């Protein structure tokens, strides 16, 4: 049993139960991202893995060892904080080598490891500087460097990119992915930004109120969300949920909303029939609307456009379909003006059905 394993982990502050019962197995070398809305317990979970927070119940294993009651030092982990948490009185080189110096690693070894990390992160020109003389992005890289030199078994990141501007964040995302390839270490990354999660993760763990909703690859959680929470959380702009009914017409299963009707794809027919549900919640992803029918699965829909936003390659429409408000992201060519009311198409092979009571996918 290698990797990082959480077994029935729970956490309470006083009488407030933040995490009721968490089970998770993270493979060795995997890049796992915890994602969820603010306050759902992502940081708390990460800090319990790090040993900065004590568990209320359950067990934590790292590399097969029960570390539940071990101090952070004994867990073979490195951590990058949101605020970077650099030592302000030490220069960059000293910041990076602090852990090694404490561990009594010999000088030449420290020097070569710091040099390697500095080269990797392009920090070599700044080794003598104090953190306050660095830009936000450079500080961020020092924080990364500080964990890299450790060569720990598992790396923990708590929203390390959230203080950076959008462009820098995108490039750091790529660098982090590269870093993971090079180091080939287990990495656990916390964010509330689903784009970060989708782009970097081998597997995504989606949490809500301390409960894991779904664990799966980016492809899985996007294409087969287990419930409406995951469906609306993953994807941008969010999936629209519309109340609808299933009914059969001339041997054809159809989903009928207020003032519109869509045929059901083969993929969902069996489940729909098996569940016997009549009333459902219909999920439509904005990006599955289109200006033209590309395959047979594209069904025509009449949209009343309230607002059209120009994004570049596509336009976001705040529109009405029958009595339902929804968002559509329609790809457009360079000549297109702002889109208006009219006939659009929806790729019915990619529609989703959920149980309106529980929110679970059919």
């Amino acid at each position, binding site marked *: 049993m290698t990797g990082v394993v959480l077994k029935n982990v729970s956490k309470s502050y006083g009488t407030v139960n933040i995490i009721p019962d968490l089970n998770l197995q993270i493979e060795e070398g995997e890049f796992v991202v915890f994602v969820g809305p603010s306050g759902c317990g992502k940081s708390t979970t990460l800090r319990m893995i*790090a040993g*900065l927070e004590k568990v209320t119940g359950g067990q934590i294993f790292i590399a097969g060892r029960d570390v539940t009651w071990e101090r952070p030092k004994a867990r073979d982990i*490195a*951590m990058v904080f949101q*605020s970077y948490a650099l*030592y*302000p*009185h030490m220069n960059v080189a000293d910041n990076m080598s602090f*852990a090694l110096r404490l561990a009594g690693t010999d000088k030449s070894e420290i020097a070569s490891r710091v040099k390697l990390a500095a080269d990797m992160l392009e920090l070599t020109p700044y080794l003598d500087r104090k953190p*306050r003389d660095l830009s936000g992005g450079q500080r961020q890289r020092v924080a990364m460097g500080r964990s890299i030199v450790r060569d720990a078994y598992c790396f923990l990141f708590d929203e390390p990119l959230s203080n950076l501007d959008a462009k820098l964040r995108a490039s750091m995302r790529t660098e982090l992915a590269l870093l993971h390839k090079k180091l080939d270490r287990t990495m656990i990354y916390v964010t509330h930004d689903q784009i970060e999660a989708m782009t970097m993760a081998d597997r995504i763990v989606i949490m809500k109120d301390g409960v894991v909703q779904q664990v799966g690859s980016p492809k899985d959680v996007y294409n087969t969300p287990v419930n409406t929470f995951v469906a609306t959380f993953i994807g941008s702009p969010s999936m629209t949920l519309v109340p609808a009914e299933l009914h059969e017409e001339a041997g054809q299963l159809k989903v009928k909303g207020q003032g519109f009707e869509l045929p059901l794809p083969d993929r969902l027919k069996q489940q729909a029939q098996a569940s016997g549900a009549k009333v459902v919640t219909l999920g439509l992803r904005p990006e599955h609307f289109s200006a033209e029918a590309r395959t047979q699965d594209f069904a025509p829909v009449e949209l009343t456009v309230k607002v059209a936003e120009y994004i570049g390659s596509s336009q976001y429409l705040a529109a009405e379909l029958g009595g339902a408000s929804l968002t559509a992201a329609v790809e457009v060519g360079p000549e297109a003006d702002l889109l208006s009311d009219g006939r659009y198409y929806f790729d019915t092979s990619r529609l989703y059905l959920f149980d309106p009571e529980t929110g679970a996918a059919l």
Partner: protein
Amino acid sequence: MSEISQKPRFEPGAFTPYAFIMPAIVVMMGGLLYPVVMAFYLSFYDWEIGRKLADAPFVSFDHFVRMVADPQVWEVLWVTIRFGFWTITIEMTLGVALALLLEKPIRGASIFRTIFILPLMVSPVVVGLIWRYLFDARIGWINYYLGVWFGIEPQVWLGDPQLAFFAIVFTDIWQWTPFIFIIVIAGLQALPSEVVEASTIDGANWYQQIFLVKLPMIKSILVIALLMRLIDVFRGLEVMLIMTGGGPGRSTELLSLHIYNRAFDTQQLGYASAISVLLIAIVFGISTVILTMANPMKSKSDV
């Protein structure tokens, strides 16, 4: 015609800020600068209270020449240095240690914190009175309890040079350790918790965390505390004046008390002013050295 805009010669609002700081400047001038300048001026004259200042004879550098050769001045300077060394060393150590101990939100910490800062609220004159009676040879609690608990013979605390020196050092520590404690604990609590956590993850033990992370991060606060205590050592005289009057002999006579005695007991105002100039020079020198070595204004502690 050139389009370069000209800076106006006179901006009507330019004097507003000066108008606002004017009262402060006037008070500073009157209350601080004037006495200092007068001290310099007086140190060149031989003046007694009751005589007109205009009639005081000009003595040039005589006072300074006399001062350099005056064994009494050297003696009180040595007392002051010894006093400063013991009080500041112990106060800093004890204050920092207590702050580190009570920094965590353990049960009762806030009660202890409040109790520890109480001595700070007592006026120095009252401190002097309290401890004079506590150390009193006949009726003092200290002798009484030393006798009851440890069977120690009554000591003439304030009548023996060494014991009296110990008594004033002890009293100063009692009053001023809380000062160090309170500003250090404020500094510790303002430390970003993630930096301290980062050092935990980096493997720092309790001891390393204190000496390699926490204390270096509050260095500027420690320097300011040290500076204020140093200046106080050269400034304060109330406690000594009341407890021992500087005696026995000159064993507890600090520089400022010596100046006071010269000026008001022996009426040598000019000579006392000359010694004041020495005091100003020493304090100025020490402050400059400390501020050059570790400038707390310069090191912003942003992370």
